[in-house]
């Protein structure tokens, strides 16, 4: 019992770590982007300020489902983050860091947010949710195919298991071992993070930030926290799956930073797709590459 409570405490620690890490990372990357545009940029801790400011404001609520959805969203994401390994040894629930838990438990959070947004009664929110879900359908399929290839190769769907398989030298880092798959995964990750060119569902000027249109104050703050943790989960997934995980926490931070920064830089120079372009894009080349990669790796056994 005590052990489980300890684990849960540990897990909450991981979630908090993720939040802090990603929020700081977000601030730093805003700074980097600003430098790229010859600006000074905000303080590195600007994102913290933003979130705490939102939490301090007096919000409006559109009924119980509006609030309930937000709680469910944040709860689901915190729950998901609690399973996330940071290094191969720092895992809250050892042996239970199954890949599918992340894919599906994260969906609870998404569902909560979608529900809450629709509950606000604003059509723009529903449109945003529609776009978010459509985008999800697009990026998730090629990504899952690549991950399935990895799971098939390593024979485990445990995230640390996959990371360890790369560290012990059974496989190269999968970004090298499965180069095509890696490219697909990068594109999918950009979709997951809602970075340009796939940020169709936020589209501030077009549909007034989509799902978030009716949020302000603490609900928005909680959604920001949720968003930060979601990014933490997704980027960490990527690190563990393709970059060989991390032996030490320092390595994790470095890899995490590189992945996030690179994606950020890429997204900063791109425009935005239309929603049906997103779908056709993902179902064209990334899916094709993912399938080719899977064929090569599974049926031909050519893994570098």
């Amino acid at each position, binding site marked *: 019992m005590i052990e489980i409570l300890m684990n849960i405490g540990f897990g909450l620690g991981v979630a908090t770590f993720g939040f802090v890490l990603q929020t700081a990372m977000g601030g730093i990357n*805003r700074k980097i982007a*600003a430098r790229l*545009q*010859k*600006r*000074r*940029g*905000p*303080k590195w801790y*600007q994102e913290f*300020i*933003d979130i*705490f*400011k939102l939490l*301090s*404001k*007096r*919000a*409006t609520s559109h009924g119980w489902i509006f609030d309930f959805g937000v709680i469910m969203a944040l709860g689901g994401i915190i729950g998901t983050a609690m399973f996330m390994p940071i290094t191969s040894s720092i895992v809250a629930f050892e042996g239970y860091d199954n890949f599918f838990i992340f894919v599906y438990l994260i969906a609870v959070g998404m569902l909560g947010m979608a529900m809450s947004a629709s509950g606000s009664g604003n059509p723009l929110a529903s449109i945003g949710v529609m776009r978010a879900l459509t985008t999800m359908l697009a990026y998730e399929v090629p990504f899952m195919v690549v991950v399935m290839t990895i799971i098939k190769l390593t024979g485990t769907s445990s995230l640390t298991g996959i990371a360890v398989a790369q560290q012990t030298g059974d496989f190269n880092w999968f970004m090298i071992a499965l180069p095509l798959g890696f490219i697909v995964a990068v594109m999918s990750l950009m979709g997951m993070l809602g970075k340009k060119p796939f940020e169709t569902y936020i589209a*501030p*000027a077009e549909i*007034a*930030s989509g799902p*978030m*249109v*009716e*949020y*302000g*104050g603490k609900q*928005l703050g909680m959604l920001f926290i949720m968003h930060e943790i979601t990014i933490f989960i997704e980027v960490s997934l990527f690190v563990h799956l393709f970059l060989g995980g991390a032996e030490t926490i320092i390595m994790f931070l470095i890899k995490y930073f590189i992945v996030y920064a690179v994606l950020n830089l890429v997204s900063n120079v791109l425009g935005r797709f239309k929603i049906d372009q997103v779908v056709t894009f993902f179902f064209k080349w990334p899916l094709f590459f993912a399938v080719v990669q899977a064929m090569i790796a599974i049926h031909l056994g050519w893994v570098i």
Partner: protein
Amino acid sequence: MESTKYTQPVALSKKQVDRKWWEIGDFFRRNSLWMLMYCTGCCAIELPPAMTSAYDMERLGMGPMATPRQADVLLVTGYLSLKTLRRLIYTYEQMSEPKYVVGFGSCTINGGIYHDSHAVINQLDQYIPVDSYVAGCMPNTEAVMNGFVDLIELIKNKKANGWKNYHTNNAWYKKNQIDALGEVRIKDEFHQ
């Protein structure tokens, strides 16, 4: 010499606690001002340079936001016709508190070059509380930035209380609004 003896800390009253929290909140609020830009007037042209690399308002923690619910500051950039006033008030009332208003250009102060137009209001302050004005026709970008810094100072000094005034003097504001707008007969412009 001060005594090193341990003294029981004085329990703060609820009011004091609230005040402390408020001050902490104020710190966050003034360092993260999200704007809602009501760009009906010509002064809006000053915002792009303020946002981009020349003046970079993001270093103050400011940024544009999409909807009134998310925003903290309402920027009224210039003259305001009666038709748009309705929408401005509607939008202002949708913002979550605490909320601030910055008026741009002379139009929001005294009507500016439109002061004698039947379709334009002259003093924004009559209808919604304005915390900070940026004077000029049009004001240059430094002035705009200065206006924002002023607002930050005001928040720091707890003087940006427009939103509180709107509550306390609500009847007065409402009266002015109705006087200006007259009786609104239309229910919905497009689908009557």
